[in-house]
């Protein structure tokens, strides 16, 4: 018992560790998280896959053995005590019982025995003495057998479905875990599992219209290939949505071919399909190589879009001047569900498709981008959004290009070309100079003009950060703030003059100029990628299936049933023994005993005694 408790404590502690350290991540993540030193120490204890660790399994085995021993040791005793009555009490010793009563009724011992029997007791027959022995609630003791046997059965069921057999094969060297990234057909035989394998939990990722008869079993940082007794083809994957846009259901239409026979089945989350002891679950989905049609828009040049066709998981070359780049398209999401503020309430909304891609230069460095197709509402305005990040750990920083009144990008396109037209810039600066009443003589006017042109040019070439740098280098510290403010005003004023046509034609919403200036300035941080407009697409899904073969499950369920029954018996059935002796005519002494003392028990005894009195 002590041993069992010690083992149980270890299981509990190991389990806790397993919930604190996220299990079965790629090993690289652990290396980053813990550093070289601890990574290897933790690895040697299998802390990344604790529940599959050999030492953990050994402890579980010990528990099974110790509980089995406990059951086998106790069961004969218990069975005996269920069959046997404890007799042999001396009438005198009854008095020593905690629950001892004496009553006086005009009844025979036999009549009392009848009454006791009517209350669910079994009476020991053919006793020679005038001692009446009775008991009830033997189920309580059976409860012990039920629960503890249940634990053994559950553990064995669980071990059956674990990968013990593979571990054995691995230890004698007949199987090895594959860690290289190989095609299924190239995986060596030693890392393949027969289709008659006893139990497994394998995953299979199928693109739409793809077919396969092998699945993947993940083990630690590697995998094994599991042969299946049938072919599975994904005909179509679909997502059903609620009216708010949130996903309601993920479904895969499958065709399963076995021995030339075809079975068509649709599975979804919570609705798996079973065949030949293998159950197929909907467990995951991702992009399966959607086709996309894009326009690339350079953010600084005159917006001559280049159009390209591509596909997710494909790469496209891109030349810009002397530089070679590659687009690597990683993901396409048709639905992006966000909580959007609407008034002062949060509303769930689908904001439409997005593309995730990397933009890699010829020395191999890459930036990651996520670009949304549709303009996204923010405080009654709409923006084309594209996020960029340097590495996977950091958050996306978004470039927000304001949409015009037609929700198109044309407004911004015109804006960017307007603010660069040399003649108009000069005219605007003249206009600005004219309006500045504080400039009196010709020289100060000329100075102002030159200065303004310079500032504006800096903005065109490097955005607000260029202005900030210019101020830092040229303006005394105590005036920087005021000067900065006036520069920003100047830039705004000129841009507004330059975009009169847009404003007059009512093409752009309020605040557009300000938002567009911000977007223009932010473009300098956006990185080398052109802005990407998604024109149209054909969504192709890949569905992640899980294939489970778990012959131990039935034992686990059976054990669970016994466990519940057993606990119920043990806790809610009270074993009671009682003795009655006729002390003299119509005078009886009654003693009760139970292996548990509850308050209820005392009350029960008093109740029963009162019944006997009647």
């Amino acid at each position, binding site marked *: 018992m002590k041993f069992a408790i010690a083992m149980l404590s270890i299981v509990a502690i190991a389990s*806790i560790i397993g919930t*604190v350290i996220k299990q079965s991540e790629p090993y690289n993540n652990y290396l980053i998280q813990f550093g070289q030193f601890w990574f290897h120490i933790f690895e040697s204890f299998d802390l990344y896959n604790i*529940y599959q660790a050999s030492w953990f399994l050994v402890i579980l085995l010990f528990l099974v053995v110790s509980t089995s021993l406990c059951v086998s040791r106790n069961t004969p005793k218990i069975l005996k005590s269920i069959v046997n009555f404890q007799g042999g009490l001396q009438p005198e010793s009854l008095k020593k019982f905690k629950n001892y009563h004496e009553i006086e009724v005009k009844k025979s011992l036999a009549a009392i025995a009848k009454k006791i029997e009517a209350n669910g007791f079994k009476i020991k027959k053919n006793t020679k003495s005038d001692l009446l022995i009775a008991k009830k609630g033997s189920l309580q003791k059976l409860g012990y057998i039920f629960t503890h046997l249940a634990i053994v059965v559950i553990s064995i069921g669980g071990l059956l479905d674990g990968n013990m057999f593979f571990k054995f094969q691995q230890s004698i060297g007949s199987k090895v875990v594959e860690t290289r990234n190989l095609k299924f057909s190239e995986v060596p035989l030693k890392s393949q599992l027969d289709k008659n394998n006893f139990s497994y939990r394998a995953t299979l990722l199928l693109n739409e219209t793809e077919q396969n008869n092998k699945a993947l079993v993940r083990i630690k940082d590697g995998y094994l290939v599991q042969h299946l007794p049938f072919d599975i083809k994904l005909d179509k994957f679909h997502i059903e949505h609620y009216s*708010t846009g949130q996903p309601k259901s993920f479904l895969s239409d499958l065709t399963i071919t076995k021995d030339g026979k075809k079975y068509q089945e649709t599975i979804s989350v*919570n609705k798996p399909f079973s065949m030949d002891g293998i159950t197929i679950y909907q467990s995951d989905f991702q992009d399966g190589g959607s086709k996309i049609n894009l326009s690339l828009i350079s953010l600084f040049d005159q917006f001559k879009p280049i159009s390209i066709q591509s596909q997710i998981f494909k790469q496209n070359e891109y030349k810009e001047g002397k530089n070679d780049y590659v687009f690597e398209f990683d993901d396409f999401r048709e639905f992006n569900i966000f909580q959007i503020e609407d008034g002062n309430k949060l509303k769930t909304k689908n904001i439409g498709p997005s593309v995730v891609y990397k933009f890699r230069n010829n020395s191999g460095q890459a930036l990651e981008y996520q670009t949304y197709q549709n303009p996204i509402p923010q405080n009654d305005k709409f923006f084309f959004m594209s996020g960029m990040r340097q590495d996977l750990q950091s958050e996306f920083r978004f470039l927000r290009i304001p949409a015009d009144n037609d929700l198109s990008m044309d407004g911004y396109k015109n804006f960017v070309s307007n603010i660069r037209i040399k003649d108009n810039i000069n005219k605007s600066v003249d206009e600005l100079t004219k309006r500045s009443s504080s400039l009196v003589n010709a020289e100060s006017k000329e100075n102002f003009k030159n200065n303004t042109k310079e500032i504006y040019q800096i903005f065109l070439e490097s955005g607000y950060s260029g202005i900030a740098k210019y101020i830092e280098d040229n303006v005394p510290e105590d005036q920087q703030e005021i000067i900065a403010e006036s520069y920003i005003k100047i830039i705004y004023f000129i841009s507004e003059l330059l975009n009169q046509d847009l404003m007059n034609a009512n093409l752009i919403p309020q605040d557009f100029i300000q938002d567009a200036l911000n977007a223009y300035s932010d473009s300098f941080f956006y990185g080398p990628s052109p802005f990407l407009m998604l024109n149209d697409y054909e969504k192709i899904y890949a569905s992640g299936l899980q294939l*489970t073969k*778990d012959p131990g499950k039935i034992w686990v369920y059976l054990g669970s049933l016994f466990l519940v029954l057993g606990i119920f018996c043990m806790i809610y059935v009270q074993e009671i023994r009682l003795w009655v002796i006729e002390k003299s005519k119509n005078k009886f002494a009654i003693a009760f005993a139970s292996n548990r003392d509850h*308050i209820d028990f005392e009350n029960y005894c008093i109740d029963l005694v009162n019944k006997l009195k009647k």
Partner: protein
Amino acid sequence: MIINLSFIISIVSIVALGLYRFTAFMDYYEMGILVLGGIGFIWLGFFWHTFKKIFLSVVALSGLSIFLFNDDLQAQNADFFLKYFLSSQSLIMWMTFFFPLSLLSYLTFNIKNNQFSGNVATNFSLIAIVSGFSGLMVRWYESYLISVDVGHIPISNLYEVFVLFCLITGLIYIYYEGKANVKSLGVFVLLIINAAVAFILWYTFSKNADSIQPLVPALQSYWMKIHVPSNFIGYGAFSISAMIALAYILKNYGFFKKSLPSNHVMEDLMYKSIAIGFIFFTIATILGAVWAAEAWGGYWSWDPKETWALIVWLNYAAWLHLRLVKGLRGNVLAWWSLVGLIITTFAFVGVNLFLSGLHSYGEL
């Protein structure tokens, strides 16, 4: 007599109505749950009389509310009674109003030993329980008014299960109070209920958590209807035993010596609530495994929530062993059950807060 009759009639007619009118919304399992649930409630009513009154009050309140709604969700802004009393949000707010009042009255009872405030406290708790359960019932109905495919039983996110926790804990306590006459423990049990109430209020006002959201695909299963309630009977019962343990420990340090029940009674109640909790928690964990086998492709995946359920289970199994096998009593078990509450709380909320896993609902 009238109560018995209306109790049975209302249960039978609710079950019949469900089977007859809402057949299209249920699969066979759900019909089974409905029928068995009805039988279970009838049994519970005859096992414990107060339950009948609570049940009938809930039926009356939610029936009235549904009548006033008249299948129009906008009615909750237009109708005075719905707006302030009978919409699910208001009913749950009334629950969060009466539980603190009940706590104060129990406290008065303990300090002044004033029988009147004791009775008031019990009634406040009953009012809170009735409005809370009615709130959940109406919320269930409202979810279908949002859209038929959004409709679902309101035990699907952290907000809803916290309400459920308050109600079940309250219900179990009221039962023990009536049976063992232990009003002086009320203040302790109400302490933990009000901690949950505080959380509900914070969650409602700072996170807008009370809005009804549609179910994610993983939760769309009849299993939820039995797995979650049995889990919360477990959590509720464990919490009660921990709060009794707190009273027990305080008493042994000399506090509330006069008002608290005898050690023997408190030990017994601690045992009883752990026992009932243990049964339901075992069932809940098993049902969880069966559900996981259907939804995730394996009955046991060592997901953090599963693992912590196992730890909670082992902890109380050890507690029961100590009491039943070793015959242990007293302070050790009391402390143990108090520590058990920390473990249980972590399994209930901590896992959602700090660990990620397949049980992804209810993040903060």
